């Protein structure tokens, strides 16, 4: 029984990372109706920024952390201006191709700068973990779960209880009507990209000590986030969170009981299974109603 709790803890920990990335993914999708194929690179770029600041330059962790998140805000803004904004009046296809191009450009530039060997980022806390009974709680996982809970709570408050949150929702539901009311649509989309890049980056920084920091990190994370949004119902914010957590748990148990090498393959399996048998996601009906 303890092994079940142990796996559940780890699954929720890694699932929180998927949830954060999926959340950023869904926010951009809702605001622009575009699937951002460069979402995973938000996490990769942030992890590399951490490597630059805290490993290469040997700056203190917290300063590096703040600089990396600030860097991601700028990256999100530039991404919007370079990848989405010039194509905003076109159909979704040119924009999708543009995001794929950005993904390739960013990961290959990183490859050119850092080479293929993975970088290592240490845990934030010196204290590695402790036991409750026979369940070992790794502090990095605890940190991830804690940050995710706080961020999800913050986001709920922000979207449901602030005027800016309502304006962001209005923009994602009907841009033309939003502009008729005087809501600055371009600014709302800018805010969305910046926020999305920052939570994707946060997820990358949190997960970096668990995974290796490499150019493949973005692709792996993007696939998981994508699967999470399919599980939760495409475009649904709550669904993305639940989907991310579910995927983390499924693949952790899959790795423990079925096969370790195929750990990343479970995301694919779940993705395909949902696409075939329940394309509307777990909360299908609710999403349809919300549309």
């Amino acid at each position, binding site marked *: 029984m303890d092994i079940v709790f142990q796996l559940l803890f780890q699954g929720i920990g890694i699932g929180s990372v998927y949830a954060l990335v999926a959340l950023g993914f869904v926010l951009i999708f809702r605001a622009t109706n575009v699937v951002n194929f460069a979402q995973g690179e938000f996490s990769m770029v942030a992890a590399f920024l951490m490597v630059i600041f805290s490993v290469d330059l040997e700056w203190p962790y917290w300063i590096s952390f703040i600089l990396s998140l600030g860097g991601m805000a700028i990256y999100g803004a530039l991404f919007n201006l370079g990848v989405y904004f010039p194509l905003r009046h076109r159909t979704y296809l040119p924009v999708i191709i543009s995001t794929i191009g950005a993904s390739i450009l960013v990961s290959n530039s990183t490859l050119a700068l850092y080479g293929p060997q993975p970088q290592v980022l240490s845990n934030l806390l010196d204290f590695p973990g402790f036991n409750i009974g026979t369940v070992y709680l790794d502090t990095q996982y605890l940190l991830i779960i804690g940050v995710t809970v706080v961020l999800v709570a913050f986001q709920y408050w922000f979207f449901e209880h*602030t005027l800016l949150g309502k304006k962001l929702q209005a923009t994602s539901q009907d841009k033309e009507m939003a502009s008729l009311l005087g809501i600055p649509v371009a600014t709302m989309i800018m805010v969305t990209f910046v926020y999305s890049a920052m939570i994707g980056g946060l997820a990358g920084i949190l997960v970096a000590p668990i995974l290796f920091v490499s150019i493949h990190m973005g692709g792996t994370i993007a696939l998981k986030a994508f699967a999470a949004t399919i599980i939760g119902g495409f475009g649904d914010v709550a669904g993305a969170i639940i989907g991310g957590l579910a995927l983390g748990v499924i693949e952790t148990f899959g790795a423990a009981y079925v096969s370790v090498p195929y750990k990343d393959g479970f995301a694919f399996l779940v993705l395909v299974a949902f696409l075939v048998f329940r394309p509307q996601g777990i909360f299908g009906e609710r999403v349809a109603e919300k549309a």
Partner: protein
Amino acid sequence: MPLIELKNVSVRYGEIEALRGVSLSVEAGEVVTLLGGNGAGKSTTLRAISGLTKPASGEIIFEGQSLTGLGPEEIVRLGIAHVPEGRRVFPGLTAHENIMLGASNRSGVSKAQIDQEADAMFDLFSDIRPFQHVLGWTLSGGQQQMVAVARGLMAKPKLLLLDEPSLGLAPVIVSKVFEIIKEIRRRGTTVLLVEQNARMGLSVADRGYVLETGRLVVTGKPDELWNNEDVRAAYLGGHARTAAKT
């Protein structure tokens, strides 16, 4: 000086010439109705005024200032609120939230103030008060129309553009909507009202224009238009008869 003046405005959608040299004006305090059949260019006229569609030629002047080159976000800040065809209530926001967002064009107003003003809207739109915390998509067409008009009024507009507020509503709801338009008129807001339903449009208006395939064909006071044989036969009669039948 009229509050708003269109001078020779033409609008094209690719090959289609939706407006051909339309000139019209609305004085402050007036309610003017723009009539015409389906596809005549009524919505296009309103879209050109609110900046959603750029005229190919001609000029639109509001309070002496040209609107050429301004986008919808800037135009609504000048005081022109557009309640578009099809109501366009945000489906995932509540009625109350929809109405609050109508004030987005006004700067320096606190959220608490907007909240209060939105509450006050339900005095005029008392039918939707019980539904204020219900999501937009669950509202009926008539309720959505009331939300859309209330949202437009939250902009504190000098000019309110209403596009077919009666479209698709049951007759009893239509008269409720027009009671509200009369009340808006009584409060002194200038209104440019687009209608296919000529009888309803003329019943609240000081003046009317009739648009046919992108051109203004006749203008006058409601009774003049109503009694103009050509107009009745060509544009209004058909609708009056349809209305009588249903």
